[in-house]
């Protein structure tokens, strides 16, 4: 058996509590508060203590899917990305780059969000990129 304890930051509210995910053979089995966390100093709320319960939940999306005859069918990454790229290119070429809008997330990492807005701005040449800050 392989055990690891991984120091990270809680994905819920923006207090930014530091937590330790307890990993046994690639299963996150529990969550502990980190005493070194500047904003939580060893505490977590009920959501934080139970955060591992959703990560490996059976409902997680694991493979891409594509709409075919009104329902979503599992496809490979290449099929999904090729189709998405060709559809976005088709809209861009048919209706102009301002025909596609972008909604990012206040839950993703800074790095993911940076790439997301860069993709929208650089590839489509507009600024119709927003996220749920106002929600």
């Amino acid at each position, binding site marked *: 058996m392989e055990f690891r304890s*991984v*120091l*990270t*930051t809680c*994905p819920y*509210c*923006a*207090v*930014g*509590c530091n937590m330790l*995910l307890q990993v046994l053979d*690639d299963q996150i089995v529990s969550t502990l508060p980190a005493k*070194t966390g*500047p*904003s*939580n100093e060893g505490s977590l*709320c*009920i959501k934080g203590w139970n955060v591992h319960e959703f*990560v*490996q939940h059976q*409902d*997680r*999306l*694991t493979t891409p899917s594509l*709409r075919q005859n009104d329902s*979503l069918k599992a496809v490979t*990454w290449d099929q999904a*990305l090729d*189709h*998405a790229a060709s*559809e976005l*290119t*088709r809209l861009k070429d048919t209706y102009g780059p301002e*025909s*596609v*809008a972008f*909604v*990012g*997330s206040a*839950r*993703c*990492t*800074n*790095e*993911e*969000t*940076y790439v997301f807005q860069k*993709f929208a*701005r*650089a*590839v489509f040449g*507009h*600024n*119709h*990129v*927003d*996220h749920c*800050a*106002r*929600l």
Partner: protein
Amino acid sequence: MTNSFKELESANCILAIGTNTTVAHPIGSMRLMRAKSNGAKLIVADPRRTQIASLAHLHIQHRLGTDVALINGLMHIIYKNGWHNQAFIEERTENFPALAEVIEQFPPERTSEITGVPVDQLKQAAEWYSRSESSAICYVLGITQHSTGTDNVKSLANLSMLCGQIGRPSTGVNPIRGQNNVQGACDMGCLPNVLPGYQYITVPENLEKFAKAWNAKLSPTPGLTMVEQIDAILDGKFKGLVVFGANPVTSYPDVNRVEKAMQALEFLLVMDIFPTPTSAFAHVVLPACSFAESDGTYSSSERRVQRVRPAIPPIPGKANWETLQELSTRMGYPLKYTCGEDIFNEMASLTPAFGGMSFARLNEKGLCWPCPTADHPGTQYLHQGRFSRGLGMFNAIDYRPPAEAPDKDYPFWLTTGTLFTHYLTGTMTRRCPTLHHENPVVEVEINPEDAQRLHIEAGEEIQATSRRGTIKARALVTTKVRPGVVFIPLHYAENAANRLTNAALDPVTKTPEYKVCAVNLAKSA
């Protein structure tokens, strides 16, 4: 936040307005409790009697949407009694005469009439806030999610400057952000008007810097915000939508209208960790990694950039940035990042507030921006000695009522918010058995007087209807809400409170008025 969480413990007075802090940020609320134990006066202003309200020295239960009147009224009392900080006003601010003119119009009696708050409570709050050595304001979406959200925030800024309660430790105007990386998403320029680090797209030097670094042609025209995007889809302007980690078909106001927009799209791409009501409309769904599979950073509410580390390999097989990179590359704009740190370093090189940060420096306790150089210790609180714009600007703001008020067809005020067990649209927390067990179904809080009048029993299923839609909810009969006001949490996709809410927007920030609309209640057929 202008200041940091730990500083709140040393404040002498805390005014928490429009923040259900023990529920939405339990660990942040600990600082408020500790401040109270240390002798601070705790004032909570909230139309509901929340847990933190019941623990406060003073609970101001003002009417929904009357925040500007309340704050102007407090400033009136402070100014008339000479409790304002004249030296601070003279040295650090401008435009005070315009403010003085407006607050003159809010004597205690008129303020009390608009807000429903007794005059003696207004006087007590004004005195505690203005005359304490260090007073901090905390607020959240109860202030911003109004058609007057910008006015509300500017009014709080006015109050802090009037009393000189900003730019020092344990003071300030502190929005406690509701989502783990809402600060970071703004910091990263995921907004229609700014590039990373709040560098305005309308400033030619900013645009040139990024255009050169990215080798791309960029637009100087601000884009549309999320709710405006829905309008633009329905008007036929947008044919495609790319949604990354968001669930508009539960979280946006007026969900019935959002569904029509999703149906109207020629192409909808959704990337998420779980199937959602939004992904049900998608043409392509891409699986995403959760925080526990991601390598990168979040920015917390106190502007602290902290590390996020992967505990397990990506469940979908790819990191989220890899997916975006592969899509971009397929569209003829190749990206060649090798890891999260690689992306962070590029961002930091273009973003002065992050310029001194690196993963090596962040690894221990993170750093609060601005942190412009590699030897800069980060910034615990903002506006020391000087505001970002130089002098602090007073904005003279008059009171405007909410966009929709109760009438004979829709006689109740509805306000929405969160529960202690759940987060946003519940896609994560409602899948946690421990949390789900606590609050399995949507409940509408209704005052006992109203319940009795409508013959509604506690626990009975009732219908709530607005001009935009209808949902079912179980009646929770409670004095947390005043007669005439009901509260519905926003977490339940199957009976989404946002089928009822009004998409009236603040004219500046375009934030929807989630916190106020009119509804009717009836027993279920």
